[in-house]
């Protein structure tokens, strides 16, 4: 099983992937440097994180800056939020590995899509399909199942 990457390395990978990838967790989502830093902080904690607590971990940043960043991550559906007394506390909606997987998968999907018209040197089993014709795939499935049955009867 893959070891989780150390926080420092993962942070830069996440940012690089997030800046390059497109339409991953939500269409058009991108993470700025501060957003990815804050997201890593939330993942590193075992419990929820308030704005004040986040600001303590990010010296040199104004309270409003940290608050706005957490709010942006909430609107990008990367963080959940609930009220605790008069303040909001934030918690991750997706795990670190889950987010990395989503970002990487989107990157791969982009490259596979481009490869059909252009360049990456690869041969795929099935190239990306056009507007999904479920009915056609169902028809083909029925043909295949009929052939399975016929072969099983012939074996008997």
């Amino acid at each position: 099983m893959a070891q989780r990457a150390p926080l420092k390395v993962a942070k830069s990978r996440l940012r690089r992937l997030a800046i390059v990838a497109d339409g991953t967790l939500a269409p058009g989502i991108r993470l700025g440097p501060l957003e990815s830093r804050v997201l890593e902080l939330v993942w590193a904690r075992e419990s929820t994180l308030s704005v004040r607590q986040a600001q303590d971990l990010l010296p040199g940043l104004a309270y409003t800056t940290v608050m706005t960043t957490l709010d942006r991550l909430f609107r990008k559906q990367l963080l959940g939020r609930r009220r605790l007394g008069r303040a909001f506390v934030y918690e991750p909606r997706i795990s670190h590995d889950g987010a990395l997987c989503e970002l990487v998968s989107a990157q791969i999907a982009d490259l596979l899509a481009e490869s059909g018209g252009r360049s990456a040197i690869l041969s795929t089993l099935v190239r990306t399909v056009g507007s999904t014709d479920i009915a056609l795939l169902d028809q083909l499935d029925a043909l295949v199942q009929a052939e399975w049955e016929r072969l099983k009867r012939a074996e008997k």
Partner: protein
Amino acid sequence: MNMLFVLCLVLLATYALNCMLLSLLVALAWSGGLHRVLQSAQALLALRLLPVAGAVVLLLGVALPAFLAHEAEHPSEDVGSLICILAGISLLLFGAAIRRGCVAWLDTRALLRCCKFLDPLLSTGMQRVELVDVNVPLVAVVGGLRQQILIARALLSVCSQAEFREIVAHETAHLRARDNLKLLSMIIAPDFLAWLPVGRTLTRRWRVAAEFEADKRAVGSDPLRRVALASALIRVARLMGRNDYRDTVLAMPIGLQEVEGRVHQLLAPQRDAPNSKVVRLLASGGALLLLALLPLYGWIHELLEFLVHFSF
């Protein structure tokens, strides 16, 4: 100008001229009806690479010997503008080819790096397969010279053992036929077809034909294996259809027709496409042409002299 430099200009200009004529010939032949006749991957590959191969053969087999045999000894020679333009076009072709090669290499590396993030794991049977933890239905042979089979781990749970085995067999068939190397040669071919729609069409048709042939090589005439592969194709096609990361992923309408064609071919195999003679015909024609031009070296040299000295 120095004679060695003139020789280089002659070679570059001759390459550009031959490539241009052969590319035009291929484009005309294709739109004139060859697209209805050629179906096999081998024939399509031969046609796609004809301009480059033909230009190199004419250059080394005709132009260079003619030049060396008949060129008088001069310490230097003046050149006209036409040869410089043609030589420039040649350099442009090679530059564009190198650029395409670099882009292909970078894209391939990027794909492999992405997969490495989520750590590949196992091998299956005799053929090493890298299982990758991604949530796109990735099934591919990746790389030109050092090839790897990458399969999304999720397919292990979606496909039966028999279906997965045939998926690996299909990708192994691509590996053994060196299809990625053939694809790379089409990508980096320094010719005019790379800039023309017919070039892209030929490459796309070749890809489709190569898939059909990989299916045949993977499962042979075993009916159970054929059905298993057909079933696997449909499963993967369904997963691909669900991939709605972005609209551009769904930009290959040929994909579904291709799956339909392949499933029909697997369930009811047709005769092989009758194009195996095309390559032999082209090779024989080329050899005959070289022989026919042997006595004409003097005349060819005069042509080259005209090329060297002509200015607008």
